[in-house]
Protein backbone atom coordinates (compact mmCIF):
# COMPACT_ATOMS: atom_id res chain seq x y z
CA UNK A 1 0.00 0.00 0.00
CA UNK A 2 1.13 3.51 -0.75
CA UNK A 3 0.32 5.47 2.38
CA UNK A 4 0.70 9.22 2.84
CA UNK A 5 0.46 11.14 6.11
CA UNK A 6 0.29 14.93 5.94
CA UNK A 7 1.61 16.63 9.01
CA UNK A 8 2.00 20.17 10.22
CA UNK A 9 4.44 21.67 12.67
CA UNK A 10 2.61 23.83 15.22
CA UNK A 11 3.44 25.68 18.44
CA UNK A 12 3.47 23.43 21.50
CA UNK A 13 0.06 23.69 23.18
CA UNK A 14 1.66 25.29 26.29
CA UNK A 15 2.83 28.26 24.21
CA UNK A 16 1.73 31.74 25.22
CA UNK A 17 0.61 33.44 22.04
CA UNK A 18 1.73 37.05 21.52
CA UNK A 19 0.32 39.11 18.70
CA UNK A 20 3.06 40.67 16.56
CA UNK A 21 3.43 44.40 15.85
CA UNK A 22 1.68 44.12 12.49
CA UNK A 23 -1.47 42.90 14.31
CA UNK A 24 -1.83 40.21 11.65
CA UNK A 25 0.51 37.50 12.80
CA UNK A 26 1.99 36.12 15.99
CA UNK A 27 5.47 36.56 17.40
CA UNK A 28 7.33 33.40 16.53
CA UNK A 29 10.43 34.11 18.65
CA UNK A 30 10.12 31.85 21.71
CA UNK A 31 7.89 29.18 20.27
CA UNK A 32 8.66 25.52 20.77
CA UNK A 33 7.52 23.76 17.60
CA UNK A 34 6.09 20.27 17.66
CA UNK A 35 4.18 17.93 15.37
CA UNK A 36 0.45 18.75 15.54
CA UNK A 37 -1.02 16.17 17.98
CA UNK A 38 -3.75 15.06 15.55
CA UNK A 39 -1.12 14.47 12.86
CA UNK A 40 0.63 12.07 15.24
CA UNK A 41 -2.48 9.89 15.15
CA UNK A 42 -2.37 9.96 11.35
CA UNK A 43 1.30 8.99 11.23
CA UNK A 44 0.74 6.18 13.74
CA UNK A 45 -2.21 4.79 11.76
CA UNK A 46 -0.13 4.90 8.57
CA UNK A 47 2.61 2.87 10.23
CA UNK A 48 0.11 0.31 11.49
CA UNK A 49 -1.39 -0.10 8.02
CA UNK A 50 2.06 -0.59 6.57
CA UNK A 51 2.84 -3.21 9.23
CA UNK A 52 -0.32 -5.05 8.24
CA UNK A 53 -0.37 -4.65 4.45
CA UNK A 54 3.22 -3.79 3.51
CA UNK A 55 4.10 -0.91 1.23
CA UNK A 56 5.53 2.42 2.22
CA UNK A 57 4.68 5.48 4.27
CA UNK A 58 5.52 8.94 2.96
CA UNK A 59 5.15 11.93 5.26
CA UNK A 60 4.54 15.32 3.69
CA UNK A 61 4.63 18.78 5.18
CA UNK A 62 4.38 22.34 3.92
CA UNK A 63 6.22 24.98 5.92
CA UNK A 64 9.45 26.86 6.56
CA UNK A 65 12.89 25.28 7.07
CA UNK A 66 12.15 24.28 10.71
CA UNK A 67 9.41 21.92 9.42
CA UNK A 68 12.14 19.37 8.72
CA UNK A 69 12.24 18.59 12.46
CA UNK A 70 8.61 17.42 12.49
CA UNK A 71 9.23 15.32 9.38
CA UNK A 72 12.32 13.79 11.03
CA UNK A 73 10.21 12.89 14.05
CA UNK A 74 7.81 11.01 11.76
CA UNK A 75 10.71 9.29 10.01
CA UNK A 76 12.06 8.30 13.42
CA UNK A 77 8.65 6.83 14.29
CA UNK A 78 9.05 4.64 11.22
CA UNK A 79 7.93 6.47 8.09
CA UNK A 80 10.00 5.61 5.01
CA UNK A 81 10.47 8.95 3.32
CA UNK A 82 9.57 12.59 3.63
CA UNK A 83 8.58 15.36 1.27
CA UNK A 84 9.13 18.91 2.48
CA UNK A 85 7.43 21.69 0.52
CA UNK A 86 9.42 24.64 1.74
CA UNK A 87 7.83 28.07 1.99
CA UNK A 88 7.95 30.91 4.52
CA UNK A 89 4.54 32.23 3.52
CA UNK A 90 1.52 32.09 5.79
CA UNK A 91 -0.84 30.03 3.64
CA UNK A 92 -4.59 29.66 3.56
CA UNK A 93 -6.01 26.13 3.89
CA UNK A 94 -6.81 26.05 0.17
CA UNK A 95 -3.27 27.03 -0.85
CA UNK A 96 -1.81 24.44 1.53
CA UNK A 97 -4.13 21.76 0.17
CA UNK A 98 -3.15 22.62 -3.41
CA UNK A 99 0.53 22.26 -2.57
CA UNK A 100 -0.13 18.95 -0.82
CA UNK A 101 -2.19 17.70 -3.76
CA UNK A 102 0.60 18.53 -6.18
CA UNK A 103 3.21 16.99 -3.89
CA UNK A 104 1.44 13.64 -3.38
CA UNK A 105 -0.25 13.12 -6.74
CA UNK A 106 2.64 11.24 -8.32
CA UNK A 107 2.91 8.93 -5.32
CA UNK A 108 -0.52 7.54 -6.26
CA UNK A 109 -1.46 7.00 -2.62
CA UNK A 110 -4.04 4.36 -1.71
CA UNK A 111 -4.84 6.15 1.48
CA UNK A 112 -3.98 9.57 2.91
CA UNK A 113 -4.12 10.64 6.55
CA UNK A 114 -4.41 14.16 7.86
CA UNK A 115 -5.05 15.39 11.36
CA UNK A 116 -8.63 16.45 12.02
CA UNK A 117 -7.30 19.92 12.63
CA UNK A 118 -4.04 21.72 13.25
CA UNK A 119 -3.99 23.38 16.67
CA UNK A 120 -2.52 26.65 15.36
CA UNK A 121 -5.13 28.15 13.03
CA UNK A 122 -7.77 25.60 14.14
CA UNK A 123 -9.01 25.48 10.56
CA UNK A 124 -10.00 21.83 10.19
CA UNK A 125 -10.05 22.41 6.44
CA UNK A 126 -6.90 21.13 4.77
CA UNK A 127 -7.75 17.42 4.75
CA UNK A 128 -11.18 17.96 3.21
CA UNK A 129 -9.77 20.37 0.64
CA UNK A 130 -6.99 17.94 -0.27
CA UNK A 131 -9.51 15.13 -0.80
CA UNK A 132 -11.60 17.43 -2.99
CA UNK A 133 -8.60 18.45 -5.10
CA UNK A 134 -7.55 14.84 -5.57
CA UNK A 135 -11.11 13.78 -6.38
CA UNK A 136 -11.10 11.33 -3.48
CA UNK A 137 -13.83 10.62 -0.96
CA UNK A 138 -12.96 11.39 2.64
CA UNK A 139 -14.23 10.82 6.16
CA UNK A 140 -13.34 13.23 8.95
CA UNK A 141 -12.68 12.48 12.62
CA UNK A 142 -11.79 8.82 12.19
CA UNK A 143 -11.46 6.91 15.46
CA UNK A 144 -11.34 3.49 13.81
CA UNK A 145 -9.97 2.66 10.38
CA UNK A 146 -10.37 -0.79 8.85
CA UNK A 147 -8.93 -1.42 5.41
CA UNK A 148 -10.51 -4.40 3.63
CA UNK A 149 -8.26 -7.44 3.18
CA UNK A 150 -8.30 -6.94 -0.60
CA UNK A 151 -7.29 -3.30 -0.07
CA UNK A 152 -10.17 -2.06 -2.20
CA UNK A 153 -12.06 -0.15 0.47
CA UNK A 154 -11.91 1.25 3.96
CA UNK A 155 -14.40 1.53 6.80
CA UNK A 156 -14.05 4.53 9.08
CA UNK A 157 -15.90 5.20 12.35
CA UNK A 158 -16.70 8.82 13.03
CA UNK A 159 -18.09 10.00 16.36
CA UNK A 160 -20.57 12.82 15.88
CA UNK A 161 -22.93 14.45 18.36
CA UNK A 162 -24.64 11.57 20.16
CA UNK A 163 -23.77 8.81 17.68
CA UNK A 164 -21.00 7.06 15.82
CA UNK A 165 -21.35 6.72 12.07
CA UNK A 166 -19.48 4.00 10.17
CA UNK A 167 -18.68 5.00 6.61
CA UNK A 168 -17.29 2.90 3.79
CA UNK A 169 -15.25 4.37 0.96
CA UNK A 170 -13.49 2.80 -2.02
CA UNK A 171 -9.73 3.43 -2.02
CA UNK A 172 -8.01 5.73 -2.72
CA UNK A 173 -9.49 7.82 0.05
CA UNK A 174 -8.54 10.29 2.76
CA UNK A 175 -9.18 10.09 6.50
CA UNK A 176 -8.69 12.83 9.08
CA UNK A 177 -7.57 11.49 12.44
CA UNK A 178 -9.27 12.17 15.75
CA UNK A 179 -8.08 11.43 19.25
CA UNK A 180 -8.98 7.85 20.12
CA UNK A 181 -7.78 6.41 16.81
CA UNK A 182 -4.62 5.00 18.39
CA UNK A 183 -1.78 5.70 20.82
CA UNK A 184 1.09 7.16 18.81
CA UNK A 185 4.43 5.45 19.43
CA UNK A 186 7.50 7.33 20.55
CA UNK A 187 10.51 7.49 18.29
CA UNK A 188 13.10 4.97 19.52
CA UNK A 189 16.78 5.81 19.67
CA UNK A 190 17.64 3.46 16.77
CA UNK A 191 14.65 4.99 14.97
CA UNK A 192 16.13 8.45 15.41
CA UNK A 193 19.51 7.26 14.09
CA UNK A 194 17.92 5.59 11.07
CA UNK A 195 15.79 8.65 10.34
CA UNK A 196 18.91 10.65 9.54
CA UNK A 197 19.57 8.47 6.51
CA UNK A 198 16.03 8.38 5.18
CA UNK A 199 15.20 10.42 2.06
CA UNK A 200 13.96 13.98 2.57
CA UNK A 201 12.78 15.37 -0.73
CA UNK A 202 12.64 19.15 -0.84
CA UNK A 203 10.29 21.02 -3.18
CA UNK A 204 9.27 24.64 -3.64
CA UNK A 205 5.79 25.91 -4.52
CA UNK A 206 7.30 26.98 -7.86
CA UNK A 207 8.52 23.41 -8.55
CA UNK A 208 4.97 22.24 -7.98
CA UNK A 209 3.50 24.98 -10.18
CA UNK A 210 0.94 25.98 -7.59
CA UNK A 211 -0.37 29.52 -7.21
CA UNK A 212 -0.66 30.61 -3.59
CA UNK A 213 -3.49 33.06 -4.16
CA UNK A 214 -5.28 33.83 -0.90
CA UNK A 215 -9.03 33.72 -0.47
CA UNK A 216 -8.91 35.22 2.99
CA UNK A 217 -8.12 38.76 4.10
CA UNK A 218 -6.89 39.02 7.66
CA UNK A 219 -8.01 42.37 9.10
CA UNK A 220 -6.43 42.00 12.52
CA UNK A 221 -5.63 39.69 15.37
CA UNK A 222 -6.86 40.70 18.81
CA UNK A 223 -6.41 39.24 22.27
CA UNK A 224 -9.32 37.06 23.38
CA UNK A 225 -12.07 38.75 25.37
CA UNK A 226 -10.82 38.93 28.96
CA UNK A 227 -13.03 37.39 31.57
CA UNK A 228 -13.68 39.81 34.41
CA UNK A 229 -12.04 38.69 37.64
CA UNK A 230 -14.42 36.32 39.39
CA UNK A 231 -15.62 36.03 42.95
CA UNK A 232 -14.32 33.52 45.41
CA UNK A 233 -17.39 32.79 47.45
CA UNK A 234 -16.82 33.17 51.17
CA UNK A 235 -18.70 31.27 53.86
CA UNK A 236 -18.32 29.57 57.22
CA UNK A 237 -18.97 26.10 55.91
CA UNK A 238 -18.91 24.43 52.54
CA UNK A 239 -22.70 24.28 52.66
CA UNK A 240 -22.90 28.05 53.20
CA UNK A 241 -20.68 28.65 50.19
CA UNK A 242 -22.73 26.39 47.96
CA UNK A 243 -26.01 27.94 49.07
CA UNK A 244 -24.56 31.36 48.22
CA UNK A 245 -23.33 30.06 44.86
CA UNK A 246 -26.74 28.76 43.86
CA UNK A 247 -28.28 32.08 44.94
CA UNK A 248 -25.79 34.01 42.78
CA UNK A 249 -26.36 31.72 39.82
CA UNK A 250 -30.07 32.39 40.11
CA UNK A 251 -30.19 36.06 41.03
CA UNK A 252 -27.02 37.56 39.59
CA UNK A 253 -26.10 35.35 36.63
CA UNK A 254 -29.77 34.40 36.07
CA UNK A 255 -28.67 31.10 34.68
CA UNK A 256 -30.44 28.45 36.78
Amino acid sequence: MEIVACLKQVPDTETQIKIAGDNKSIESGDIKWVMNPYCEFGVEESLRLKEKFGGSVTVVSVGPARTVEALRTALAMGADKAVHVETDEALTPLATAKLLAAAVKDLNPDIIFCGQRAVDGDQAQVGQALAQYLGMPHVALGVKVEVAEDKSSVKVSQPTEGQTVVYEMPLPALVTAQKGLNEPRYASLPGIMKAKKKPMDKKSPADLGVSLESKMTILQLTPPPQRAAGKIIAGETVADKVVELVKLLREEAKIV
Partner: protein
Amino acid sequence: MAECIWFFAEERDGELRKVAYEAARTARRLADEAGTQAVGVLLGSGVTGLAEKLGCYGADKVFVVDDEAMKNYTADGYAEVTAKLVEEHKPAVLILAASVLGKDLSSRLAARLEVGLAMDCMELKIGDDKKLVAKRPIYAGKAMCECVPGGEPQMASIRPNVFPTGEPDESKKAEVVAVPLNVDPSLMKTKVVDIQKDTSGKIELTEAEIIVSGGRGMKGPENYTILEELAGVMGAAVGASRSAVDAGWRPHSDQVGQTGKVVSPNLYVACGISGAIQHLAGMSSSKVIVAINKDPEAPIFAKADYGIVADLFEAVPVMTEEMKKLKA
Protein backbone atom coordinates in the same frame (compact mmCIF):
# COMPACT_ATOMS: atom_id res chain seq x y z
CA MET B 1 -31.98 36.31 -6.29
CA ALA B 2 -28.28 37.02 -6.32
CA GLU B 3 -26.77 38.66 -3.23
CA CYS B 4 -28.82 36.48 -0.86
CA ILE B 5 -27.55 35.23 2.47
CA TRP B 6 -27.77 31.46 2.46
CA PHE B 7 -27.57 29.03 5.33
CA PHE B 8 -27.34 25.27 5.56
CA ALA B 9 -30.04 23.66 7.71
CA GLU B 10 -28.74 20.58 9.48
CA GLU B 11 -31.20 17.74 9.95
CA ARG B 12 -30.98 14.34 11.60
CA ASP B 13 -33.55 11.55 11.96
CA GLY B 14 -36.39 13.65 10.64
CA GLU B 15 -35.71 16.65 12.85
CA LEU B 16 -33.97 19.94 12.35
CA ARG B 17 -31.09 20.37 14.76
CA LYS B 18 -30.72 23.38 17.02
CA VAL B 19 -27.73 24.52 14.98
CA ALA B 20 -30.06 24.78 11.96
CA TYR B 21 -32.09 27.41 13.82
CA GLU B 22 -28.91 29.19 14.90
CA ALA B 23 -27.78 29.32 11.28
CA ALA B 24 -31.23 30.46 10.08
CA ARG B 25 -31.44 33.26 12.62
CA THR B 26 -27.88 34.37 11.88
CA ALA B 27 -28.63 34.43 8.15
CA ARG B 28 -31.78 36.46 8.88
CA ARG B 29 -29.82 39.03 10.87
CA LEU B 30 -27.12 39.31 8.20
CA ALA B 31 -29.76 39.55 5.47
CA ASP B 32 -31.37 42.42 7.37
CA GLU B 33 -27.99 44.13 7.69
CA ALA B 34 -27.40 43.68 3.96
CA GLY B 35 -30.97 44.42 2.93
CA THR B 36 -31.54 41.07 1.26
CA GLN B 37 -33.18 37.66 1.74
CA ALA B 38 -32.28 34.74 4.00
CA VAL B 39 -32.41 31.45 2.11
CA GLY B 40 -31.96 27.93 3.46
CA VAL B 41 -30.63 24.71 1.97
CA LEU B 42 -32.08 21.50 3.37
CA LEU B 43 -30.91 18.07 2.20
CA GLY B 44 -32.33 14.76 3.33
CA SER B 45 -34.91 12.07 2.73
CA GLY B 46 -38.49 12.81 3.75
CA VAL B 47 -37.52 16.25 4.99
CA THR B 48 -39.73 18.54 2.90
CA GLY B 49 -42.17 18.94 5.76
CA LEU B 50 -39.46 20.49 7.93
CA ALA B 51 -38.57 23.27 5.52
CA GLU B 52 -41.50 25.58 6.16
CA LYS B 53 -40.64 25.76 9.85
CA LEU B 54 -37.35 27.47 9.10
CA GLY B 55 -39.50 30.49 8.34
CA CYS B 56 -40.20 30.79 12.08
CA TYR B 57 -36.49 31.49 12.52
CA GLY B 58 -36.28 34.00 9.71
CA ALA B 59 -35.84 32.09 6.45
CA ASP B 60 -37.64 33.66 3.48
CA LYS B 61 -37.13 30.64 1.29
CA VAL B 62 -35.73 27.12 1.53
CA PHE B 63 -34.35 24.95 -1.26
CA VAL B 64 -35.02 21.32 -0.45
CA VAL B 65 -33.40 18.32 -2.06
CA ASP B 66 -35.54 15.50 -0.71
CA ASP B 67 -34.16 12.25 -2.05
CA GLU B 68 -33.27 8.77 -0.79
CA ALA B 69 -29.67 9.45 -1.87
CA MET B 70 -29.53 12.34 0.64
CA LYS B 71 -30.79 10.23 3.56
CA ASN B 72 -27.43 10.08 5.29
CA TYR B 73 -24.75 12.72 5.26
CA THR B 74 -21.65 11.94 3.25
CA ALA B 75 -19.11 14.66 2.58
CA ASP B 76 -18.68 14.04 -1.12
CA GLY B 77 -22.42 13.68 -1.77
CA TYR B 78 -23.61 16.67 0.22
CA ALA B 79 -20.79 18.93 -0.96
CA GLU B 80 -21.49 18.26 -4.63
CA VAL B 81 -25.25 18.72 -4.32
CA THR B 82 -24.84 21.97 -2.38
CA ALA B 83 -22.15 23.22 -4.78
CA LYS B 84 -24.51 22.74 -7.73
CA LEU B 85 -27.22 24.77 -5.99
CA VAL B 86 -24.75 27.53 -5.12
CA GLU B 87 -23.45 27.67 -8.68
CA GLU B 88 -26.94 28.03 -10.01
CA HIS B 89 -28.19 30.72 -7.61
CA LYS B 90 -24.96 32.52 -6.66
CA PRO B 91 -25.62 33.60 -3.08
CA ALA B 92 -23.34 36.28 -1.61
CA VAL B 93 -22.82 34.48 1.69
CA LEU B 94 -23.22 30.90 2.92
CA ILE B 95 -23.43 30.15 6.64
CA LEU B 96 -23.12 26.66 8.14
CA ALA B 97 -22.90 25.39 11.69
CA ALA B 98 -19.48 24.50 13.05
CA SER B 99 -20.93 21.15 14.13
CA VAL B 100 -19.24 17.89 13.12
CA LEU B 101 -21.28 17.82 9.92
CA GLY B 102 -21.06 21.54 9.24
CA LYS B 103 -17.30 21.78 9.69
CA ASP B 104 -16.75 18.82 7.41
CA LEU B 105 -19.18 19.89 4.71
CA SER B 106 -18.08 23.53 4.71
CA SER B 107 -14.41 22.56 4.27
CA ARG B 108 -15.02 20.31 1.32
CA LEU B 109 -17.47 22.76 -0.21
CA ALA B 110 -15.10 25.72 0.11
CA ALA B 111 -12.46 23.81 -1.86
CA ARG B 112 -15.04 22.70 -4.42
CA LEU B 113 -16.21 26.30 -4.90
CA GLU B 114 -12.70 27.73 -4.50
CA VAL B 115 -13.77 30.30 -1.90
CA GLY B 116 -12.57 31.37 1.53
CA LEU B 117 -14.17 29.85 4.63
CA ALA B 118 -14.02 31.40 8.12
CA MET B 119 -14.28 28.36 10.40
CA ASP B 120 -15.91 28.21 13.83
CA CYS B 121 -16.82 31.90 14.10
CA MET B 122 -17.88 33.66 17.28
CA GLU B 123 -19.04 36.88 15.59
CA LEU B 124 -20.32 37.76 12.13
CA LYS B 125 -21.39 41.07 10.64
CA ILE B 126 -21.87 42.73 7.29
CA GLY B 127 -19.15 45.38 6.89
CA ASP B 128 -19.30 48.78 5.20
CA ASP B 129 -18.62 47.41 1.73
CA LYS B 130 -21.42 44.84 2.18
CA LYS B 131 -18.89 42.11 2.74
CA LEU B 132 -19.14 39.54 5.50
CA VAL B 133 -16.65 40.15 8.32
CA ALA B 134 -15.96 37.23 10.64
CA LYS B 135 -14.26 36.85 13.99
CA ARG B 136 -12.91 33.47 14.97
CA PRO B 137 -10.66 32.07 17.68
CA ILE B 138 -7.23 30.79 16.69
CA TYR B 139 -4.56 29.06 18.77
CA ALA B 140 -7.35 27.49 20.84
CA GLY B 141 -8.79 30.86 21.73
CA LYS B 142 -5.48 32.44 22.73
CA ALA B 143 -6.12 35.03 20.00
CA MET B 144 -9.05 36.15 17.88
CA CYS B 145 -8.75 36.65 14.14
CA GLU B 146 -10.92 39.16 12.34
CA CYS B 147 -11.10 38.28 8.68
CA VAL B 148 -12.99 38.66 5.41
CA PRO B 149 -13.42 35.41 3.49
CA GLY B 150 -12.83 35.95 -0.23
CA GLY B 151 -14.63 34.71 -3.33
CA GLU B 152 -18.34 34.20 -3.80
CA PRO B 153 -20.09 33.04 -1.78
CA GLN B 154 -18.21 34.16 1.28
CA MET B 155 -18.41 31.18 3.64
CA ALA B 156 -18.46 30.98 7.42
CA SER B 157 -19.31 28.33 9.97
CA ILE B 158 -20.65 29.37 13.37
CA ARG B 159 -19.75 27.82 16.71
CA PRO B 160 -22.75 25.96 18.19
CA ASN B 161 -24.46 27.59 21.19
CA VAL B 162 -22.96 31.03 20.51
CA PHE B 163 -25.43 32.59 18.06
CA PRO B 164 -29.00 32.96 19.40
CA THR B 165 -31.89 31.18 17.74
CA GLY B 166 -34.32 33.83 18.98
CA GLU B 167 -37.94 33.05 19.73
CA PRO B 168 -39.65 31.29 16.83
CA ASP B 169 -42.38 33.32 15.16
CA GLU B 170 -44.95 30.61 14.45
CA SER B 171 -46.86 32.84 12.06
CA LYS B 172 -43.98 32.98 9.56
CA LYS B 173 -43.54 30.27 6.97
CA ALA B 174 -40.72 29.95 4.49
CA GLU B 175 -41.39 29.49 0.78
CA VAL B 176 -40.37 25.92 -0.01
CA VAL B 177 -38.69 25.19 -3.34
CA ALA B 178 -38.29 21.50 -4.15
CA VAL B 179 -35.15 20.77 -6.16
CA PRO B 180 -34.66 17.39 -7.81
CA LEU B 181 -31.41 15.59 -7.03
CA ASN B 182 -28.84 17.36 -9.20
CA VAL B 183 -25.97 14.86 -8.96
CA ASP B 184 -25.75 11.27 -10.19
CA PRO B 185 -25.78 9.17 -6.99
CA SER B 186 -23.28 6.73 -8.49
CA LEU B 187 -20.71 9.53 -8.26
CA MET B 188 -21.11 9.67 -4.49
CA LYS B 189 -18.42 7.28 -3.38
CA THR B 190 -18.95 7.30 0.37
CA LYS B 191 -21.62 5.09 1.93
CA VAL B 192 -22.95 4.92 5.45
CA VAL B 193 -22.88 1.29 6.58
CA ASP B 194 -23.84 1.66 10.23
CA ILE B 195 -25.03 4.22 12.74
CA GLN B 196 -24.51 3.42 16.40
CA LYS B 197 -26.61 5.63 18.64
CA ASP B 198 -25.31 6.52 22.07
CA THR B 199 -27.88 4.66 24.09
CA SER B 200 -27.06 6.48 27.30
CA GLY B 201 -29.44 9.29 26.39
CA LYS B 202 -26.64 11.66 27.31
CA ILE B 203 -26.83 15.30 26.36
CA GLU B 204 -24.19 16.11 23.76
CA LEU B 205 -21.47 18.32 25.22
CA THR B 206 -21.26 20.77 22.32
CA GLU B 207 -25.00 21.34 22.47
CA ALA B 208 -25.50 21.40 26.23
CA GLU B 209 -26.75 24.55 27.97
CA ILE B 210 -25.04 23.44 31.17
CA ILE B 211 -21.97 21.25 31.64
CA VAL B 212 -20.73 19.75 34.86
CA SER B 213 -17.17 18.60 34.37
CA GLY B 214 -14.84 16.52 36.51
CA GLY B 215 -11.06 16.18 36.48
CA ARG B 216 -8.38 14.27 38.30
CA GLY B 217 -9.80 15.60 41.56
CA MET B 218 -12.67 13.12 41.10
CA LYS B 219 -10.19 10.44 42.24
CA GLY B 220 -11.83 7.57 40.36
CA PRO B 221 -14.48 6.61 37.80
CA GLU B 222 -17.03 5.54 40.42
CA ASN B 223 -17.18 9.05 41.87
CA TYR B 224 -18.66 10.51 38.71
CA THR B 225 -22.05 9.40 39.97
CA ILE B 226 -22.13 12.54 42.15
CA LEU B 227 -21.60 14.67 39.04
CA GLU B 228 -24.19 12.69 37.14
CA GLU B 229 -26.70 13.31 39.92
CA LEU B 230 -26.02 17.03 39.84
CA ALA B 231 -26.18 17.01 36.05
CA GLY B 232 -29.45 15.11 36.18
CA VAL B 233 -31.07 17.75 38.37
CA MET B 234 -29.71 20.61 36.28
CA GLY B 235 -30.38 19.05 32.86
CA ALA B 236 -26.66 19.20 32.21
CA ALA B 237 -24.12 17.14 30.30
CA VAL B 238 -21.09 15.67 32.05
CA GLY B 239 -17.63 16.51 30.75
CA ALA B 240 -14.10 15.61 31.80
CA SER B 241 -10.51 16.80 31.68
CA ARG B 242 -7.94 14.92 29.71
CA SER B 243 -6.40 13.53 32.88
CA ALA B 244 -9.71 11.86 33.69
CA VAL B 245 -10.00 10.54 30.13
CA ASP B 246 -6.41 9.32 29.97
CA ALA B 247 -6.92 7.54 33.29
CA GLY B 248 -9.75 5.65 31.60
CA TRP B 249 -12.40 7.08 33.91
CA ARG B 250 -14.40 8.69 31.12
CA PRO B 251 -14.66 8.09 27.34
CA HIS B 252 -12.71 10.22 24.83
CA SER B 253 -15.95 11.78 23.68
CA ASP B 254 -16.33 13.47 27.09
CA GLN B 255 -13.01 15.32 26.94
CA VAL B 256 -13.19 19.09 26.96
CA GLY B 257 -10.19 21.07 25.76
CA GLN B 258 -7.74 21.74 23.01
CA THR B 259 -7.58 18.09 21.98
CA GLY B 260 -11.15 17.41 23.00
CA LYS B 261 -14.38 19.28 22.51
CA VAL B 262 -14.74 23.02 22.41
CA VAL B 263 -17.87 23.95 24.32
CA SER B 264 -19.80 27.18 24.92
CA PRO B 265 -22.55 26.38 27.41
CA ASN B 266 -24.36 28.98 29.47
CA LEU B 267 -22.84 27.45 32.57
CA TYR B 268 -19.69 25.35 33.01
CA VAL B 269 -19.04 23.86 36.43
CA ALA B 270 -15.45 22.61 36.76
CA CYS B 271 -14.99 20.19 39.65
CA GLY B 272 -11.49 19.05 40.61
CA ILE B 273 -10.02 20.53 37.45
CA SER B 274 -6.86 22.61 37.84
CA GLY B 275 -7.38 24.77 34.74
CA ALA B 276 -4.46 23.80 32.49
CA ILE B 277 -4.13 25.99 29.40
CA GLN B 278 -5.28 23.12 27.17
CA HIS B 279 -8.42 22.63 29.24
CA LEU B 280 -9.20 26.35 29.28
CA ALA B 281 -8.96 26.33 25.49
CA GLY B 282 -12.03 24.15 25.35
CA MET B 283 -14.30 25.97 27.77
CA SER B 284 -13.33 29.60 28.16
CA SER B 285 -16.06 30.74 25.77
CA SER B 286 -18.66 29.45 28.27
CA LYS B 287 -20.91 32.25 29.43
CA VAL B 288 -20.56 31.59 33.16
CA ILE B 289 -17.82 29.47 34.71
CA VAL B 290 -17.94 27.99 38.21
CA ALA B 291 -14.92 26.29 39.74
CA ILE B 292 -14.95 23.96 42.71
CA ASN B 293 -11.43 23.13 43.78
CA LYS B 294 -9.74 22.57 47.13
CA ASP B 295 -6.58 24.39 46.05
CA PRO B 296 -7.09 28.18 46.28
CA GLU B 297 -4.10 28.64 43.93
CA ALA B 298 -5.59 26.52 41.13
CA PRO B 299 -5.40 28.49 37.85
CA ILE B 300 -9.04 27.69 37.08
CA PHE B 301 -10.06 30.35 39.63
CA ALA B 302 -8.54 33.07 37.43
CA LYS B 303 -11.08 32.19 34.72
CA ALA B 304 -14.06 31.40 36.93
CA ASP B 305 -16.88 33.86 37.52
CA TYR B 306 -17.63 32.09 40.77
CA GLY B 307 -15.17 30.02 42.73
CA ILE B 308 -15.62 27.76 45.70
CA VAL B 309 -12.53 26.63 47.56
CA ALA B 310 -13.70 23.34 48.99
CA ASP B 311 -13.55 19.59 48.82
CA LEU B 312 -15.75 18.73 45.86
CA PHE B 313 -17.00 15.61 47.61
CA GLU B 314 -18.61 17.89 50.17
CA ALA B 315 -19.66 20.70 47.84
CA VAL B 316 -21.19 18.79 44.93
CA PRO B 317 -23.83 16.85 46.93
CA VAL B 318 -24.92 20.09 48.64
CA MET B 319 -25.24 21.75 45.27
CA THR B 320 -27.39 18.86 44.04
CA GLU B 321 -29.70 19.30 47.04
CA GLU B 322 -29.89 23.07 46.54
CA MET B 323 -30.70 22.67 42.88
CA LYS B 324 -33.41 20.13 43.74
CA LYS B 325 -34.99 22.70 46.06
CA LEU B 326 -34.83 25.30 43.33
CA LYS B 327 -36.48 23.03 40.78
CA ALA B 328 -39.12 21.76 43.19
